[in-house]
Structure formats: structure tokens, C-alpha cells
């Protein structure tokens, strides 16, 4: 107690103390460094050691980047200019830019088509990723797969139109019969869709014009990072719904459905992806009637989708198991039927819990698309290992090419990861 009030025990403050900044050692950068970098001598040594290592990496690699060449025609030309100095030969990226992105057989006059499809992908994905956007944008999302197919593969527009028409017919049949029985609607819808495609296939062949607006490109000619994006986006967006169905099927009370799902999941998870890709590439042809052409990319998409959907199913099963039984009971007791309970109550919560696991698999799947280089498809890695490194001009340029590939994949995967964290924060509604 201060002197002025020493005579009384009761205390009343008469003057307010002005706030003063804390001592220099307790605030700002000094305090932060003290706490986080030099709190004791072990940490101090570790800090200095790490700084040294980082500095070494930067100092040693800086000249390699700084002296980098961007516009030479070959590796030999790079070496000539550098004359023994360290320096990267980035010219391979600029010279082979289109090949890295689109592969070496895609017609160069048509590069704008996959480019446009890539840009439209963002518009199509936006309403799915950001719930606040107007729901009407989903119409474009529904059209996008067919549009993108037409843009990338070109050829007659009837193919994507008939494909889309099949889905519409299937849905209409489903909606018509679902009221009577879910099974009738479900299988009727699938049968109707296949019937439409079969009939449409015959009609489409007959009416297809010789000259098409967009030049047709063969699946074999797809390549570069475009192929990775194509496989990654398609397989992720197909394997999520399939994974949900498998996870629900595995929980089913009907032994047959449950059995099929368990066998599928366990089998696919027990087989390396590479094996499945070889099956898609070589073995599958033996089982198909001779003369059938079954598109290679389609085969690969089916295999990768099956592979990742089995994993996603298991992640979602974890999410379903984490929900308290009371949630199912509450939904039941309110009179919601099974599809409603799943869609409105169970899946939104289970998927929210599963987001980190699903993203983990999506990122892994996207990177695994480079495995198609093993079955001689020329994706980004296939292009680098094949046509580019085998060429006389660029034989021996490893660092630059693989760093570039790593950078492209990193950008996409980091983006996915950041989005998922944002999504988790958005969906947080306090604890249950």
C-alpha cells in the first residue's frame, strides 16, 4: 500500500495509473526469440545449427538457380555458356513446355481445348467446394464432365450428348419408380441408362458426321500434366460417391450386399495399384471379345477409381463408426426413412469427421496417377523419363525436370490440403 494511504486500512484508488509498455526484454522480437529460439542452451545450439544448415543450403543452391539458363536449345549449349560454373539448365522447361503439359502427340493447334477445359474446371468445382455460392451453378457442374470430354477428346458431339442423355433417362426412370420401391427405381434406372447408351451408340455411329467441329484426338495421344489432372480429377470425383456407397453397403443388414462390399474392399485393398494398372493395360484385353476397343484411359480410370474408392470407403466407415448410436435412433424416432436419415443426419456428420482421411487419400491418389507411366502412358513423369530424357538435346537434365514435376504436384496437393482445412473450420459447429 502506498504511503499516502498508510494511515487507513480501507483503500480507495484516487488516481488511475497510466499503462506503460513492458520492459524491452519482455516484449516484441526479443521476448519471442528468448522464448522460442534460445529458451535453454540445448535449444540455442539447435537453433544455431539449423540456421547454419539452412544458410548452407541457400548459399550452395543459389548459384545453381541464379545462373540458370532459360533459352538455350540443348543441354550442350547450356554447358557451353556456363563453362564449368554451376548453373541450372531450365531451358528444357521452356523448350519442352507444351510437351510437359500436354504430351508429345496432342495436336499443337488444339492446346487451347484442354486449357479451356482446365479453366472451366474451376467454375464447375466452385459450387461444390463453396456452399455459399448460388446452387444454380451446379447445373454447369453437371454439364461440365460432358463438355470437358468433348473439349479434350473432340470428335462428334453426339458421344457426350448421348452419354448425358443416358444419365437423364436413367434418372427419370429412377424418379418414376422410386416411389413404389427403391430397388425397382435403382435397378430400373441403371438398366434404362445402359439401354439408352446402347441404342444411342448405334444411332450415334449412323449420324456422326465425317467432318467434326473439333478434331478427334485419340486416348493414346493424351499426355503430360494434362493426363495427371484428367485422371486425378475424374478418379477423385468418381471414387468419393462410390466410396460412400461401399461404406454404407458394408454396414448394411442385408448379408448379400454386405458380403459383396466387404469382398470388394478387402480384395482391392490387398492388391498393389500397379498390378491393377497392368491388368487394365494388358490382361483385361483377354477377357473382352476380340475386336472390342475399350478405351485405355477409361480402363485406367476404372482401375484407379476402384482402388481409391475402397480406401475412401474404409475412411468413411471410420466416420460412421464414430457417430454415437443415438444419432441413428433420433433420426429413426422422428420417422425419417433410411435414405433421409443417411443424407440429412448421418453422412453430413460422418463425412465431416472423415475429411482429413479423405483428403489424405485424394492427395495420394493424385500423386499415384504418375504410376501410369509404368504402363507406357506418357503422363508428366512418363514424358520426362521417356521422350524428353531420351532425346539427344536433353539427355542428362534430371534435377530441373523432376523439380518442376515436384513443384506442379506440390502446388495442387498443397491447394487441396489448404482447402480441406478451410472446410473443416467452416463446418465446425461446436462440440457435440
Amino acid at each position, binding site marked *: 500500500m502506498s504511503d499516502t494511504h498508510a494511515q487507513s486500512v480501507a483503500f480507495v484508488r484516487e488516481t488511475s495509473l497510466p499503462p506503460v509498455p513492458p520492459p524491452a526484454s519482455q516484449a516484441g522480437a526479443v521476448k519471442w526469440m528468448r522464448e522460442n529460439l534460445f529458451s535453454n542452451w540445448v535449444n540455442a545450439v539447435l537453433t544455431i545449427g539449423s540456421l547454419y544448415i539452412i544458410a548452407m543450403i541457400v548459399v550452395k543452391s543459389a548459384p545453381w538457380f541464379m545462373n540458370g539458363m532459360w533459352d538455350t536449345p540443348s543441354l550442350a549449349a547450356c554447358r557451353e555458356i556456363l563453362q564449368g560454373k554451376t548453373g541450372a539448365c531450365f531451358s528444357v522447361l521452356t523448350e519442352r513446355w507444351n510437351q510437359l503439359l500436354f504430351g508429345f502427340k496432342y495436336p499443337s493447334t488444339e492446346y487451347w481445348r484442354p486449357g479451356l477445359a482446365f479453366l472451366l474446371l474451376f467454375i464447375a468445382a466452385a459450387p461444390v467446394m463453396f456452399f455459399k455460392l448460388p446452387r444454380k451453378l451446379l447445373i454447369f457442374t453437371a454439364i461440365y464432365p460432358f463438355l470437358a470430354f468433348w473439349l479434350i477428346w473432340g470428335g462428334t458431339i453426339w458421344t457426350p450428348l448421348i452419354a448425358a442423355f443416358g444419365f437423364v433417362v436413367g434418372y427419370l426412370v429412377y424418379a418414376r419408380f422410386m416411389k413404389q420401391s427403391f430397388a425397382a427405381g435403382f435397378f430400373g434406372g441403371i438398366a434404362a441408362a445402359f439401354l439408352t447408351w446402347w441404342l444411342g451408340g448405334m444411332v450415334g455411329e449412323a449420324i456422326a458426321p465425317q467432318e467434326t467441329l473439333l478434331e478427334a484426338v485419340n486416348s493414346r495421344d493424351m499426355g503430360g500434366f494434362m493426363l495427371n489432372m484428367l485422371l486425378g480429377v475424374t478418379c477423385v470425383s468418381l471414387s468419393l460417391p462410390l466410396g460412400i456407397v461401399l461404406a454404407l453397403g458394408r454396414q448394411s443388414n442385408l448379408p448379400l450386399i454386405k458380403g459383396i462390399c466387404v469382398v470388394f474392399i478387402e480384395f482391392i485393398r490387398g492388391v498393389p495399384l500397379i498390378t491393377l494398372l497392368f491388368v487394365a493395360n494388358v490382361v483385361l484385353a483377354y477377357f473382352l471379345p476380340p475386336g472390342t476397343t475399350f478405351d485405355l484411359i477409361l480402363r485406367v480410370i476404372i482401375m484407379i477409381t476402384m482402388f481409391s474408392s475402397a480406401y475412401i470407403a474404409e475412411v468413411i466407415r471410420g466416420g460412421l463408426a464414430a457417430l*454415437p448410436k*443415438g*444419432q441413428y*435412433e*433420433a433420426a*429413426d*424416432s*422422428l*420417422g*425419417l*426413412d433410411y435414405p*433421409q436419415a443417411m443424407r*440429412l*443426419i448421418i453422412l*453430413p*456428420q460422418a463425412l*465431416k469427421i472423415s475429411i482429413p482421411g479423405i483428403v489424405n487419400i485424394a492427395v495420394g491418389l493424385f500423386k499415384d496417377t504418375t504410376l501410369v507411366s509404368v504402363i507406357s502412358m506418357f503422363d508428366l513423369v512418363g514424358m520426362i523419363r521417356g521422350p524428353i530424357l531420351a532425346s539427344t538435346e536433353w539427355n542428362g537434365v534430371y534435377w530441373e525436370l523432376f523439380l518442376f514435376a515436384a513443384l506442379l504436384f506440390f502446388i495442387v496437393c498443397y491447394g487441396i490440403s489448404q482447402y480441406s482445412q478451410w472446410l473443416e473450420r467452416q*463446418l465446425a*459447429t*461446436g*462440440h*457435440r
Partner: protein
Amino acid sequence: MAEAQKMEVSDEIAISIRKMNKWYGSFHVLRDIDLTVNRGERIVICGPSGSGKSTLIRCINALEEHQKGTIEVDGITLSSDIKNVDKIRREVGMCFQHFNLFPHLSILENCTLAPIWVRKTPKKEAEEIAMHFLEKVKIPEQADKYPGQLSGGQQQRVAIARSLCMRPRIMLFDEPTSALDPEMIAEVLDTMIELAEEGMTMLCVTHEMGFARKVANRVIFMDQGQIVEQNEPEEFFNNPKSERTQLFLSQILGH
């Protein structure tokens, strides 16, 4: 009691259970249950844990399956036919010990979900109904919050409002207050008493004997899967007939 007698009980039968038996594996949980509930009745079911009282009321809306005997709710016989089950569940509301609100939906959405999807009520109207019942349980101001932000007592009251939004003719309460702090028990019981006074048919599994004395017109004591004794509350508490009931009452009222 005086208040209980004021509330009318009609002759119309709401629930009739005959010779109902249930097993968990080979364990016989419910044995030959016979129970008829008239419309407007308020029944409290008590008994030691494991006596099958929760299982009994969960059989009424088919959350549990019974293996023998019949259950008839509102004239509809419970069978494995899923359409009948859904029909009954629409007429029977239920409140759980752990509330079981949907944590990913706001309070208002919790209340409007079933009317919109099951009853096909237009959204606007469903929201009006929801607000009406939220006012009734005295928490309209929480409508936009999420269940995780509410206290236990508030959550249970939302759960009651959520059931009421379906305009059920029968309400089942499965130990609605046993997960709550003493202060919150009172607010939930008040809501339930109010509901009883309006003539709702209620079956409550609870150990709140004060509540039983005040609103119940019948108290049922269960032990080992059987109904051991049932009587009017006054008679039940002051003059229990069976030894098992006497022991149970002396234990829970002894403190």
C-alpha cells in the same frame, strides 16, 4: 393427486401391448408384458437398472424389435413392415437420456427437419411451428445456435420441442433427466409437467418420484423384465404391495 385428477383420461386406447416378449440373444429381457395405455394417460415406469424399462418403451416405437406378442399403437399393429413402423414413429415422439440433438444443424433446423422431410410441411410453416414450440419450452432466443452451445437442460428442452414439432399423439421419455445437473432437472420437468397438463399421452422412464407423484396417473414398477406392480401414485408410494417394490422405494426414497 389433486392436479393429476384434473387431467382427463379418455377411454380410447392409445397403446396396447399383449404378451410381449423380447430376448437379447438368449437373455430374456422382457417377459410377458401386458400393458394398455389410454389416451391422455401419464405413466411413469420405474425400476432398478437392467429391469427392461427402457427396452419396453423403445419397443413401442420399434427402436428395439420384440420377438413375441403384439404391440398396437394408435390402432396400427407393429410388424416388421417398414411402412407401418414409419407410420407409428410419426405419431410417437421420443426424448432420450442424452438428448441426441443433431450437432451439425442449428436448433431451428433440428426442429424443422422432420416436419419438412417426413410431413412435407413447407419450410416457412415448419419454421413457424418450430418457433411456437421453442417458445413453449422457453428458448426461442437460442433458435440460431447449435446444440453444442447450449446447456444440458436447454438441449433436452430443444429435444422435447423437436419431437413436438411432429405433432405426436404419444410422447415417450427415456430417462430424460438422468444426464442433467439438479438445477437443470427442474426446468426439464417443468416442461414435461406443462405437456402433461395439456393432455398429452406420456410414458416416462424416470426416477424423479416427485414428478411421478405430481403428474402420473399410474406408476409401473418393473424388475427382471416383468411388470411387478402398477398402481395410482398415492397408493403406489404409500402402500406398496410387493416386497420388491418396498425394497426399491425404501432405497430411492431413503435419502
